[in-house]
């Protein structure tokens, strides 16, 4: 008897089983919100292909997007690491920030409005399509059930 062309699987570590175990754990952590992180949302913008292929990931991605959508325009503590001139430099930076704040708040608050509308729009589209698919699946199941009943009868 000839040897198979390729030996499927390998002795020793069952990497496929470990991979499945890791993925299962990841799925649970995604559901629990462990990956709801704006940084991940930004990293995933480069792999939009996932959005087409993985329904569960769209939910995860939109959650990440919600976290990333708001530009942080809160006031912040102004510091200076150079010890010698620190008090002077801090006062200078505060003065500059005081002058710029009005303009930056105006710009970023408008940007936040646009971001929020875009994110809400995407979520709305996702929900609409999810509902539409659900209705079609229910209708298909009903038609299959009726078809099966006719054949059986």
């Amino acid at each position, binding site marked *: 008897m000839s040897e198979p062309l390729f030996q499927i699987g390998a002795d020793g570590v069952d990497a496929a089983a470990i991979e499945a175990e*890791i993925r299962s754990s990841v799925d649970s952590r995604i559901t629990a919100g462990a990956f709801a992180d704006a940084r991940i949302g930004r990293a995933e913008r*480069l792999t939009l292909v996932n959005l087409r292929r993985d329904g569960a990931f769209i939910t995860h991605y939109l959650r990440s997007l919600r976290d990333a959508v708001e530009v942080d325009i809160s006031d912040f503590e102004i510091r200076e690491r150079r010890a010698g001139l620190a008090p002077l430099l801090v006062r200078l930076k505060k003065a500059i920030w005081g002058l710029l704040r009005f303009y930056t708040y105006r710009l970023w608050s408008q940007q936040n409005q646009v971001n929020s509308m875009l994110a809400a729009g995407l979520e709305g589209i996702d929900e609409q399509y999810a509902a539409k698919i659900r209705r079609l699946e229910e209708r298909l199941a009903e038609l299959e059930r009726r078809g099966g009943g006719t054949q059986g009868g």
Partner: protein
Amino acid sequence: MAAPASIAVVVPRHADGVTAGGAETLLRQLALRCAGRGLRVRLLTTCATSHFTWANERAPGVVRDGPLEVEYFPVDDRDAGVFLEHQQALSRGADLTREQEEAWLANSVHSRALYDHLRAADYDRVLAGPYLFGLTVGAARVRPDRTVLVPCLHDEPFAYVSPIREMFGAVRGCLFNSEPERDLAARIGGLPEARGRVVGMGIEPFDADPAAFAARRGLDAPYVLYSGRREAGKGVPMLAEYVRVFRERTGRDVRLVMTGSGPVDPHPFVLDAGMLPEAEKREAMAGARVFCHPSRLESLGIVLLESFMAGTPALVNEGSEVLQWQCRRSGAGFGFRHYPDFEAMLDRLLADEPLRARMGAQGRRFVQTEYSWAAIDARLFQALETL
């Protein structure tokens, strides 16, 4: 069926330097194996060296390259503007008319002199590839009954163009690098299983010092390695982003080393090693904690197999059926679906050294068995005899 006595290997460029692509290297290697077996082999190629300009930079004529006879033919004049216009439309996913598809193909790289040679000569078999060059389609149209494609097929828009699909239906057979590639050809081109064989390419066995690369480069932290062309289509920017986020979220000081050609985004945790001599690349592979292949479009995954040979396990993009197939068969890698998988899998391999070492050992055994030249020769010559 008798083995062929004479073979022409048609390839757009001769891979006698470091600039040619993986497919051209593969075809040259197959030509060398056939010549080493005592078959009459001539490698037919163009005078071009750049796949951007396709300018005729070499002199036409025959030269000897070890056991191979290589014959260079001039590239025909072409309208690169028309070609690029349709190429870009295809890349965007647009549907072309039959006339536009033919215009795209007609303005790809061709050589009438090479086709005339194929008509005049009486080769038993013509090995031609990769699939998406006009030269391959043109050669296959000259003697389809004797042509065996080495397509290096990817699931990309160009593969669905009508003349390409028709080529799969017309040729004598195909040599594939993997089972997923063979299945893809069946899906796209309707190629019957009986006309396809999975062959691949041999990986030279090597041992490399795992500490040498880090010592030479002053690396004092574990690193993930990527080798190959650095471009968006290969998933390289995504990998850099993943590693950046991984470092921030886990607090682990893991670096990303990239070898190969192409631009790299400047990050403080990325070491751009550039094009390395083969020995140093192998040391980089042996010293990496994990090799990462983020590409979705691969027909074999040569660098993945080399990293397995170096004893290093891998993380691959689950979107690549071929890379996932290699990991499944070897037990030497995990496939990630998205960043959360990547983080969990990399974290596991960094934290669990016994697991990492055992997976690495499995990968090395796998390549030594399945991708030795003896194994490749057995598959190649059986394919040539039976196709």
